[in-house]
């Protein structure tokens, strides 16, 4: 039984979790290989000479785009090195990139922190994974936008002071406002996968448009110097070449093609998820691509019959395509032709003794990872037409595999810890003790999430380790489990800037390895302030404005 839980956790870590990570990083590496990424970087640097607006564009908007697609430290490494390349003082550049990397983190790597949490919580809350992974991002999307709105102002005040922030208030307001609105709308009405990428693009475009009709009265270029483009190595062996704006400008056609690669990614994932949009869930297949890709999935009324294999109601264990759902071996017994869970949860964690099923779902086509891989191949068509050799696919694949070999193993083990602890009852033991903190629990919940990210460096890991604990404690204390699990994620992002792992990525990004301590000293206060604020917001949402919590 324990073996079943441990292996299930590892398998869940590989599919769907690592599958998304690998394809997302593959896509990102492909745009680096084809040169699209450098083109976008240069086009951003050319938009304005004002330091404050460069900071917003690079650290906030562009950083969020990279977080939404690649995640795992890439946004900090990239935006820190870009800022340093533009002439920002290196330690300041790293600190600003780290602080900017908060608002988008819960939806990083195509929403992986919240989708992982949804997968772990679904059997615990007695809802299917689909419903749970809709409710969680909706809740996070009712917490983080408040912070997204203020982070741009926060950054500029830190960099240039309050007075100089007021001078560029239109840019600050447009960057934060459009991102916050995008984040709320997409997470509540579309889903977690594209929340960051779409909001970041909207925000980037909005600031770019604003600059056409408005420019700061006085261009702030303090500390300008001719930057020598340093070549630095990120800790994952990824070579970061910091380009400056002095190279020959790219043609508008080239710039368009570069942005189009990201457009293809977003369109492909959007089309694949069309059935998840608010109001479109009853759309009939084949227009409803989502239902089509999930044919044969239990509960899919629009396409109940699988393409290959027996119907789930006839043979619950049989192999089916394109969605194979089965009970994990060693964790069930057959009774009356149906599999029944062996693990029973008991009072007071649940009202009365009830089964805790350990099921596994291989959604071959509908998984976000598959859609992103497909998008990468589609995006490669225009790249190939423009002369990128086909061998670039192989090189990129090799590079991605080398980069992610160890992180994937780590993810599998961490998910294994979570599953073993959930199914053995260890998580509930901790929750029972935590529930004794009483009415102040929402405040502590925020700190627990932040400590989880501080220690592991990842919101996904923090959600995996503490999300189930938060949800169980919430149920025991009469609070909403969705609210508390989401708080773990939303507050977790505030711990990212002080986690040793991300500090070293930031330091490497600006070529200041060994000066992590100085960066930490600059950011730690802000991590504490922002976590406190999130704790207060969780308290408010738990007791004063509970209508903000989405119904499961």
């Amino acid at each position, binding site marked *: 039984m324990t073996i079943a839980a441990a292996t299930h956790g590892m398998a869940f870590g590989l599919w769907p979790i690592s599958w998304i990570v690998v394809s997302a990083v593959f896509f990102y590496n492909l745009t680096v290989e084809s040169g699209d990424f450098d083109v976008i970087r240069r086009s951003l640097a050319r938009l304005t000479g004002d330091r404050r607006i460069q900071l917003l564009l690079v650290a906030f908007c562009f950083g969020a785009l990279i977080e939404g697609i690649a995640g795992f430290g890439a946004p900090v490494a990239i935006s820190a090195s870009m800022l340093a390349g533009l002439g920002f003082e290196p330690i300041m550049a790293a600190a600003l990139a780290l602080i900017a990397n908060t608002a988008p983190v819960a939806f990083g790597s195509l929403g992986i922190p919240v989708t992982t949490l949804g997968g772990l919580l679904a059997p615990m809350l007695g809802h299917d994974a689909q419903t749970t992974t809709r409710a969680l991002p909706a809740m996070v999307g009712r917490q983080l936008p408040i912070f997204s709105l203020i982070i741009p102002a926060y950054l500029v005040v830190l960099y240039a002071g309050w007075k100089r922030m007021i001078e560029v208030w239109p840019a600050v307001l447009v960057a934060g406002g459009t991102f916050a609105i995008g984040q709320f709308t997409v997470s509540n009405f579309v889903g977690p996968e594209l929340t960051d990428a779409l909001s970041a693009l909207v925000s980037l475009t909005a600031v770019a448009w604003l600059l056409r009709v408005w420019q700061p009265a006085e261009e702030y270029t303090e500390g300008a110097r001719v930057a020598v483009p340093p070549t630095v190595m990120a800790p994952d062996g990824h070579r970061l070449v910091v380009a400056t704006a002095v190279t020959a400008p790219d043609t508008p056609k080239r710039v368009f093609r570069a942005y189009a690669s990201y457009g293809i990614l977003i369109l492909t994932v959007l089309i694949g998820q069309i059935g998840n949009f608010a109001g479109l869930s009853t759309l009939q297949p084949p227009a409803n691509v989502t239902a089509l890709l999930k044919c044969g999935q239990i509960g899919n009324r629009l396409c109940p019959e699988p393409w290959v294999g027996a119907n789930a109601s006839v043979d619950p264990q049989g192999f089916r395509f394109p969605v194979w759902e089965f009970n994990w071996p060693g964790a069930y*017994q057959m009774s009356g032709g149906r599999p029944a869970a062996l693990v029973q949860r008991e009072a007071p964690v649940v009202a009365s003794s009830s089964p805790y099923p350990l099921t596994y779902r291989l959604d071959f086509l509908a998984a976000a990872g598959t859609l992103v891989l497909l998008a990468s191949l589609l995006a490669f068509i225009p790249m190939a037409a423009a002369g990128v050799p086909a061998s670039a696919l192989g090189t990129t694949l090799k590079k991605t595999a080398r980069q992610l070999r*160890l*992180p994937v193993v*780590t993810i599998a083990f961490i998910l294994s810890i979570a599953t073993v602890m959930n199914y053995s*009852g260890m998580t509930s033991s901790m929750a*029972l003790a935590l529930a004794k903190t009483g009415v102040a629990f929402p405040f502590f919940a925020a700190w627990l999430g932040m400590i989880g990210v*501080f*220690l592991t460096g990842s919101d996904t890991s923090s959600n995996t380790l*503490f999300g189930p604990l938060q949800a169980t404690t919430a149920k025991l204390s009469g609070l909403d489990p969705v609210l508390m699990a989401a708080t773990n994620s939303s507050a977790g992002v505030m711990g990212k800037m002080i986690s*040793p792992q991300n500090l070293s990525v930031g330091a490497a990004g600006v070529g200041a390895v060994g000066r992590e301590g100085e960066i930490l000293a600059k950011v730690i206060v802000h991590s504490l302030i922002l976590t406190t604020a999130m704790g207060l917001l969780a308290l408010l949402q738990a007791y004063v404005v509970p209508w903000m919590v989405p119904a499961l």
Partner: protein
Amino acid sequence: MAELFHQVYNPVAGSVFLSALTASIPPLLLAVLLAVLRVAPWRSALAAAATAFVLAWLVWACRCR
């Protein structure tokens, strides 16, 4: 027929508090290995997963009750 496994929440000396303390060993170990001892992430995760496995197997799922 396999036996149903009924979860127990206070396996350590019948105390919720001591059980919670014991249950917190795997995440704490992961934290110490990663942040204090600077062990490679995959090794830290493996060590913590092994600890969780042993605790679950010998304490929470113990057939001695």
